[in-house]
């Protein structure tokens, strides 16, 4: 970080021995306080940051959050474990599938349930599609914020294909609620498999297309290279995760560190940056798009027929068609939704590598059907903690870049 002196500014100095020579009135300088947000288009939601400026340089920035606070953690204490799944959609509303996944995994860890193989593959495929959607959304909006508009249209064009695919899978584009505790809600149809395969052939050349727009774009390079640099040590100390941490050269990825679902059966690499700047984080996300395609391909090859829901009648839901025809299944469904299942007393933390970073759920249970305490470790919230540190000394326009580089979503940040 260097503070540049503006060459064009003339500095008037008064000779202390001849103060009468001073013909100019004394200039007064002070730091300027600027409110950015809550209605700023690049804050990705409703976020306000109070910027203390010295000229156009940021001296201190204080994020003011909570405009979207809905008390999700409090609501969780009042409902059963199943009833909380739709609430998780609304955390990071851009990538609902991954929130469902992280939550279901946490409850499965609490209940000690093993998910059948086919369900694990389906979960991994959908999670990676969600990662692609998340990164496309990020790339489009980040480029738009910085001033490259075309990428936005290209990213959203391809994102639309996947959202339609989600629509066909579960009837919703954004708030999906497709994951269930112990498995998934429904299997893929042959048409979904076919569309997915078609997309995998279509997509990799499109990633190259996005890159072409940005790789030689001087504005993009000038505004991302060397902006918002954070060292690996600081990034860890701040608890940053996901691409934001990997940009600084730490290969912390829960898919590799604590393998879950079908990830250990797939071969993929974790891209790691060097400089810890915005450009490296962009590069990592683009590389992750290629890796996601690779993972989905392998999953499609390896997937076998089998059940899509764990068979633990006291916890998992019966298949929908049996609920309407079979008395026991109907009673099971009714009991699970009205009373919930009996969780053992204890506490667990389970982190999942969402595309923004480590999305974790800390659940305390005292027995009974409702969580006693449920804490959401939201990457967006924790990344905002480093905002002041990362923005110090940069220009006011870089504040926008820094929001973007976290891939911040306020629904998750404020919960």
């Amino acid at each position: 970080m260097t503070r540049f002196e503006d060459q064009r500014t003339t500095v008037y100095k008064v000779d202390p021995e001849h103060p009468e020579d001073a013909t100019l009135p004394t200039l007064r300088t002070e730091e300027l306080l600027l409110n950015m947000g809550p209605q700023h288009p690049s804050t990705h939601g409703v976020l306000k940051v109070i910027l203390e400026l010295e000229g156009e340089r940021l001296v201190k920035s204080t994020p003011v959050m909570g405009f979207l606070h809905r008390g999700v953690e409090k609501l969780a204490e009042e409902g059963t474990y199943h009833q909380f799944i739709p609430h998780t959609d609304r955390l990071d509303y851009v990538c609902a599938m991954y929130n469902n996944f992280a939550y279901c995994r946490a409850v499965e860890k609490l209940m000690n349930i093993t998910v059948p193989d086919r369900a694990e593959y389906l979960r991994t495929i959908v999670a990676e599609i969600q990662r692609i959607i998340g990164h496309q959304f990020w790339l489009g909006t980040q480029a738009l914020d910085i001033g490259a508009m075309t990428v936005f249209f290209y990213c959203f064009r391809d994102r639309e294909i996947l959202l339609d695919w989600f629509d066909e899978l579960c009837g919703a584009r954004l708030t999906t609620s497709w994951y269930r505790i112990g498995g998934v809600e429904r299997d893929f149809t042959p048409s979904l498999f076919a569309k997915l395969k078609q997309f995998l052939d279509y997509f990799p050349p499109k990633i190259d297309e996005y890159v072409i727009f940005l790789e030689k774009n001087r504005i993009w390079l000038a505004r991302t290279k060397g902006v918002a640099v954070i060292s690996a040590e600081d990034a860890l100390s701040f608890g940053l995760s996901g691409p934001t941490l990997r940009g600084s050269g730490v290969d912390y990825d829960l898919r590799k560190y604590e393998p879950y679902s079908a990830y250990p059966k797939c071969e993929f690499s974790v891209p790691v940056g060097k400089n810890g700047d915005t450009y490296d984080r962009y590069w990592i996300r683009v590389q992750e798009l290629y890796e996601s395609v690779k993972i989905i391909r392998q999953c499609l090859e390896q997937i076998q027929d089998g059940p899509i829901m764990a068979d633990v009648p006291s916890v998992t839901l019966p298949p929908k068609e049996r609920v309407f025809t079979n008395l026991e299944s109907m009673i099971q469904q009714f009991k699970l939704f009205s009373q919930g299942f009996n969780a053992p007393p204890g506490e667990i933390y389970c982190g999942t590598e969402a595309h923004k970073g480590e999305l974790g759920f800390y659940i305390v249970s005292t027995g009974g059907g409702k969580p006693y305490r449920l804490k959401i470790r939201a990457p967006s919230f924790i990344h905002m903690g480093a905002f002041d540190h990362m923005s110090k000394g940069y220009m006011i326009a870089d504040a926008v870049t820094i929001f973007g580089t976290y891939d911040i979503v306020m629904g998750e940040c404020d919960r």
Partner: protein
Amino acid sequence: MNQLAQRIEETFPGASTKVTEWRGDLAVTVKREALHDIGKFLRDDPAMRFDYIVHVSSVDWPDDEERFEVVYEVYSIRTRQRIRLKTRVPESDCIVDSLTDIWKGADFMEREVYDMMGIRFRNHPDLRRILMPDEYEEGYPLRKDFPLRGKGWRDTFEFLDEPAR
């Protein structure tokens, strides 16, 4: 007993009051006075290096003598281990030493705990509410005695009669 918990017990005799290992998660409850030192030890000890802070959380147990529980979860990138550090505080004196100087990320996370549960942190650089408005004075939302469905004010409003159709 877990190796890590044993090491803490050896270095700080009598500081840890309870060690549990459940579903692969190690949780150590320590005395409030020792929390800061143990945190520093966990981060700086060359064999462990718990350098990554995962989350700071809090739990309310209204029936217990020491009502609140503060939970720190940290991870070691080098040894790929995680540990949950817990401490208990009574309601009459709910203040804990801040670990902001050990893990910088604790700043926002502790502010959230203060905002939601009303536990204060000694030596915290900027202990203000973070998600609730600054001037909010109706208590701490995640405490168990804070009602989910409001405090009944809604029922005190006078309703106008329905206009005749």
